[in-house]
């Protein structure tokens, strides 16, 4: 739902903020992920001035750079998984192997001019049986582009990652792996996930999936434009 075109000063302010339109209705209340608060407090000069010193004395944050993540960027998005409601609740497949999941991220708000510099998949798993010991040797996570409308599936090899424990969130960098480094953001990103125990054990359950996407919009990054000139 998009709001009708705003009149006068509000439209000018929206344009200055580089936004096409203001969200129509009130957003669904949900907690702001701690990493987004952390990045905001570290990035915002007013917060940095008001709060405890977070940068070394005499240093100023580099423009168009996300210090905490160590990459170029002036837009950070925490994108929710849209595939969760459609996922079946079963824990094991009929063949006895662990299930695969498809996670879906709506990236339609990413402008064509934006260049991705980090696309970090963040997953939380839960043991199928509470308190159960994990498999000896841990797990192997596989991430691949899933088939779907406009999908780039099959162009990149699946990303495989050793996961020793499921207690901490599992993070996987997609750029340069499941997502080509020079490719622009797709409208929708669909990923096929599989978590296989390295020794016989019960399967795990995917509790939560999110994508932390950092992009550089050169239009908001005046120092870059000046350098190019």
């Amino acid at each position, binding site marked *: 739902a998009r709001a009708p075109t705003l009149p006068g000063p509000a439209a000018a302010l929206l344009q200055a903020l580089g936004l096409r339109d203001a969200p129509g209705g009130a957003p669904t209340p949900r907690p702001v992920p701690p990493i987004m608060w952390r990045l905001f407090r570290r990035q915002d*000069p007013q917060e940095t001035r008001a709060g405890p010193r977070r940068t070394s004395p005499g240093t100023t944050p580099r423009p*168009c750079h996300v210090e905490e993540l160590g990459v170029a960027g002036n*837009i*950070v998005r925490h994108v929710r998984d849209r595939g969760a409601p459609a996922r079946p609740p079963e824990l094991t497949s009929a063949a006895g192997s662990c299930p695969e999941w498809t996670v879906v991220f709506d990236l339609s708000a990413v402008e064509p001019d934006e260049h991705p510099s980090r696309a970090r998949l963040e997953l939380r798993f839960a043991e199928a049986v509470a308190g159960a010991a994990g498999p000896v040797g841990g797990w192997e996570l596989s991430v691949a582009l899933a088939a779907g409308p406009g999908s780039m599936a099959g162009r990149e090899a699946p990303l495989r990652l050793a996961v020793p424990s499921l207690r901490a969130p599992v993070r996987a960098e997609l750029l340069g792996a499941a997502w080509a480094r020079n490719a622009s953001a797709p409208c929708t990103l669909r990923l096929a996930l599989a978590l296989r125990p390295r020794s016989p054990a019960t399967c795990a359950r995917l509790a939560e999936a999110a994508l932390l996407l950092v992009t550089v919009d050169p239009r908001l990054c005046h120092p870059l434009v000046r350098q190019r000139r």
Partner: protein
Amino acid sequence: EVAPVAGGGPCRARRLYVSFREVGWHHWIIAPRGFMANYCQGPCALPAALGASGSPTFNHAALRALMYSAAPGAHGGLPCCVPARLSPISVLFFDNSDNVVLRHYEDMVVDECGCR
């Protein structure tokens, strides 16, 4: 929200607070609630145009002010009072898809004004 200008005075930064609540965006902008954007106001006549008030100035602006003092109206008027140094802000908000977005904007807050 603009603070009333007491007594005018030469070209310098004045307080201007942009409140996201006033625009009705407080339900989707998470932080900040607003920011001190500020603005520049004040005549650039001598001696302000010479940088005597502490504001940075261009040589060209000083020349224009001198010419204006010699022959008002004959040389295109006084220089303009404009931002000379700006600083960035960050905004945290929900987008149309309820994702949380952090955007960093350069040149959003007027720190210093000068005659140009």
